[in-house]
């Protein structure tokens, strides 16, 4: 019985996904070999080389994949919440007992092996999200459920940001992708994206301008959502007029006592009472979502300055400033990105050939086997090679989405989309930073960057999706809930 069930599983695996995965992992190993190969080394197979270590990690990752495939799919469903809370606990533990690497206190050290729990927390969060969103009574547009989903995403995100590993934290933000697929109103997605942009650029704008933008974003998206335009425009006009009035009166009565910012803020908060009254009379509960968004964003934005000055390390501040073009310093903070662009840009059509990349070989690109592994691809295999890698990644992501669509249960679908969104975000940010499209965030390129915990975690992440998919195909008629 058991034997036949397992053989049945292996008969229904999505071979395309596994093939894509295998090709990408092999390409990654080849790139790591090229990036860390040292022709003067006495023993090419010494275990101290990164490529030898990576080979070991590939073995471990394969075992992990096998174990995942052998587990029953109900196991993942069952384990989702315990794993999630265990993950949170580990994150908090890392915050207190972890080891600091590159300014991020996000690592555990066991002997010579360093584990980054964040990588595994991504799996747990994806599972928890899938579990929450697949429960029978769940509706994405009910504020209570949405709040729950928001909590699931934001709790680990907050802790990770506290660990000073902003890049990995923001990865979880990519679950917005999943929420949209599951029916989140686009007029909530768009303001969230806009506010995220505002957050990055917040120190370019004055606080008054930020406040005005926030009010506009939230009110207009609410108007788009409900379709009620007139009352929202009236609301905006009333806000503007009354705050201007207060400001002018105070300006002549007691000059300097109240700024326009203060007046606008006070009027906005006062208006919440009217909004609440309006919502109860019209029985329009959804209006509280933009309000909550506004309050959250306001708290977030007003602390941005504080976060930027006090929590972000100087190197992170500089990266953001440099990315936004506020500060340019080719020998300092821009050095990494500059050298990475040089390495990739000098690749041309077909690249310089295996082990022939001068920028890689002679060490001009820092972190060339980890975060900047894509430089090796770009320099040695050129535009054709780099594009091929990107197309492989794209195919994998599309394949995952396709797998998600064919799931019979929301659990599998949500999970597959979670994996797709995490991979998409990683590829976008990692490749984007090597070619100067994104600020340097220090997150790995999935399956290619050197790093044990990252490889194993991404492998497990992917193979859980494969496992869920396999059982869907094995028992196409199985009922929705186990």
């Amino acid at each position: 019985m058991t034997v036949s069930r397992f053989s049945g599983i292996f008969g229904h695996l999505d071979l395309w996904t596994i093939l894509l995965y295998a090709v990408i992992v092999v390409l990654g190993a080849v790139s790591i070999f090229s990036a860390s190969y040292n022709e003067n080394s006495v023993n090419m197979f010494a275990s101290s080389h990164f490529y030898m270590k990576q080979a070991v990690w590939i073995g471990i990752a394969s075992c992990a994949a096998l174990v995942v495939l052998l587990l029953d799919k109900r196991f993942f469903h069952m384990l989702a919440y315990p794993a999630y809370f265990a993950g949170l606990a580990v994150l908090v533990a890392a915050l207190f007992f972890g080891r600091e690497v590159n300014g991020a206190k996000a690592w555990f050290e066991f002997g010579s092996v360093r584990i980054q729990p964040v990588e595994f927390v991504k799996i747990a969060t994806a599972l928890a999200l899938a579990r929450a969103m697949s429960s029978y009574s769940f509706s994405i547009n009910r504020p209570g459920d949405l709040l729950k989903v928001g909590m699931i995403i934001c709790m680990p995100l907050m802790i990770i940001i506290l660990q000073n590993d902003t890049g990995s934290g923001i990865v979880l933000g990519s679950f917005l992708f999943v929420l949209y697929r599951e029916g989140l109103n686009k007029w909530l997605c768009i303001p969230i994206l806009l506010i995220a942009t505002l957050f990055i650029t917040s120190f370019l704008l004055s606080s008054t301008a930020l406040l005005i933008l926030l009010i506009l974003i939230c009110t207009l998206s609410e108007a788009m959502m409900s379709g009620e335009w007139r009352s929202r425009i009236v609301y905006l006009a009333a806000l503007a007029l009354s705050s201007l009035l207060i400001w002018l009166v105070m300006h002549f009565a007691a000059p300097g006592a109240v700024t326009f910012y203060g007046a606008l803020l006070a009027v906005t908060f006062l208006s919440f009472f009217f909004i609440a009254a309006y919502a109860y009379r019209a029985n329009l509960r959804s209006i509280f979502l933009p309000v909550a968004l506004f309050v959250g964003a306001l708290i977030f934005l007003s602390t941005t300055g504080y976060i930027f000055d006090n929590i972000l390390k100087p190197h992170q501040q500089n990266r953001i400033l440099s990315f936004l073009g506020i500060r340019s310093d080719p020998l300092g903070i821009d050095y990494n990105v500059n050298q990475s662009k040089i390495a990739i840009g000098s690749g041309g059509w077909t690249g310089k050939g295996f082990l022939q990349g001068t920028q890689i070989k002679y060490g001009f690109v820092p972190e060339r086997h980890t975060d900047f592994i894509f430089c090796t691809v770009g320099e040695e295999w050129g535009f054709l090679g780099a594009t091929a890698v990107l197309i492989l990644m794209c195919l994998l992501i599309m394949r995952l989405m396709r797998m998600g669509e064919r799931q019979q249960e929301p659990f599998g679908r949500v999970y597959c989309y979670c994996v797709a969104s995490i991979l998409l975000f990683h590829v976008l940010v990692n490749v984007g930073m090597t070619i100067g499209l994104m600020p340097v965030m220090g997150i790995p390129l999935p399956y290619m960057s050197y790093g044990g915990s990252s490889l194993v975690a991404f492998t497990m992440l992917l193979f859980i999706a494969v496992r869920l998919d396999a059982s869907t195909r094995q028992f196409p008629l199985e009922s929705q809930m186990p």
Partner: protein
Amino acid sequence: MNGPADSLFRMRLLQGVVLLVFALLIGRLAWLQLFDERYEEMAKANVLRHVVLYPPRGEVLDRNGEFLVQSRECYDLMVIAREIDKRGFDTVRLCEVLNIPIERVRRELANARMRPRAPRLVASYIAKEDKLRFDECNFRGFYTVYRTVRRYPRKVGGNLLGFVSEVTAEYLKRHPYYQAGDYVGLTGVESAYETVLRGNKGVKIQEIDTHGEIKGSYMDGHYDSLPDPGRSIVSTIDARLQLLGEELMRGKVGAAVAIEPSTGEILMMVSSPTYDPDELVGRQRGNNYMRMLRNKRRPLFNRAVKAKYPPGSTFKVVQGLIGLQEGVLRPSDLHECHMGYQVGRQRMACHAHSSPLDLRFAVATSCNAYFCYVFRDILDNPKYGGVKEGFDVWKEYVHSFGFGRKLGSDFLDEGHGYVPDLEFYNRRYRRSWNSLTLLSLSIGQGELGCTPLQLANLAAIVANRGYYYIPHIVRRIEGQDSLDARFYERHYTMVDPKYFEPIVDGMWRGVNVAGTSTDAYLEGWDVCGKTGTAQNPHGKDHSTFLSFAPRNNPRIAISVYVENGGYGAAAALPIASLLEEFYLTDTIRRPELLQRIKNMNIYYPSYDR
């Protein structure tokens, strides 16, 4: 809300987002890798190091094949800090072997440790002998690089030959060929023939890593090149004459220039005070240079081509020639002179001599009054209708003799001298002036300024009876059949050659019969000469002498100018005469005169105060 149609739409939209993200990444990749060329250049700049191989600089010989400038091999000591023996090395021993101060080595080593794998210069000008001893010692991490520096076997011709120095930042900006650390000729022959002498650098392209460590040769040396040695130059200078000239001018400030009239070749060019050119080579160069800069007599100023001196009576030769050509003077014309020339209250003094006198005697005895008549006749020539027009004609003549302009020699920093023009006098005298106002010009005083080279060229013009070759310092360039075409061209003055004979006769009489220049007499050589005594605001009169010999087929034309030397016959004449004697006869039969002139020291309150 969450029906199948909506789900499908949402999936398609998300697929679109994914494709858009990858399109964006691939588009940016295409821009970086396929269209933006800069990155390839930057990658090369990162990884390639161009190691310069320096060629030996060309040498300079005198006209008789004797070395004036030699190239001596020397070495730069370099270090790669990482390769130094970990157990340390004997710094004191290294300094002893190479003769370099220990503080310097310690300082440079500290700097070298900042980039431990990059080569760094520790000391330059390591002598060959020291380098050989160093090679025996095996100091790990240190090595030497071949360079050449200058050596001057005769120790003559400081300003003439010029010096070589490391390029300055400003020079680098204007001359892209050079790189920091290159040597370049900055003055004299070194700068005029820089491209010939320097040769071409070779290059060895190496690949380096991010720490500056050398990883190998680029493309197996396909783009490497060997240095092309500088070519040697045979100069027109006679080293022995130059040495004698410098000895004779010692203790005096001024210049002496000798030209071979039949070719325009400069036989000797002394600017005094001069300096030992070896002082501007090697580690003491900077100190010596600063000392010379502070010297008030300005040894680095090449007076022979740059100074502006009033020509004094030597200029009477030019006045006479212009007068003859203009027809206002015939050689037989007699003028009265009783201790000077007087019109109204204006008076030009003269010395005692018989009166009246003709042109030949006026040149021989250097009569001031005679040339006042001549000069006024030229300016007030009724043919031109006014003094201003007459002055312009006079100025054209003077220009044709090479005054007031660069002669076009191969000295890059040749001076113009100065010949005033109409506007100058119009401004100074508010347009109301006449030939009497400019009377001092008639005897080469006033505003006239001539370089010693221009004066020597005048001597050559008279010697040639009316033409000159542009004076030049180089006779032959290795690997080149001829010099610039301008040096082979005869340049005629505006005065017809037939008018020169009476002037030459006057100059011959001044030496051989009776006149101011009889001391310049050399038996059998028919020396012709003209003294000059120029009043000046700096003190005693300047002493100058213009001469050529022999009278027919002259072999040497010479001009000597001694600042504050007194009468022309007092300082300049004997110097010129001794030089002529030495050049023509190879010996000097007047040892007492030689000693007296060598030991003559003139006191210069204007410089030494």
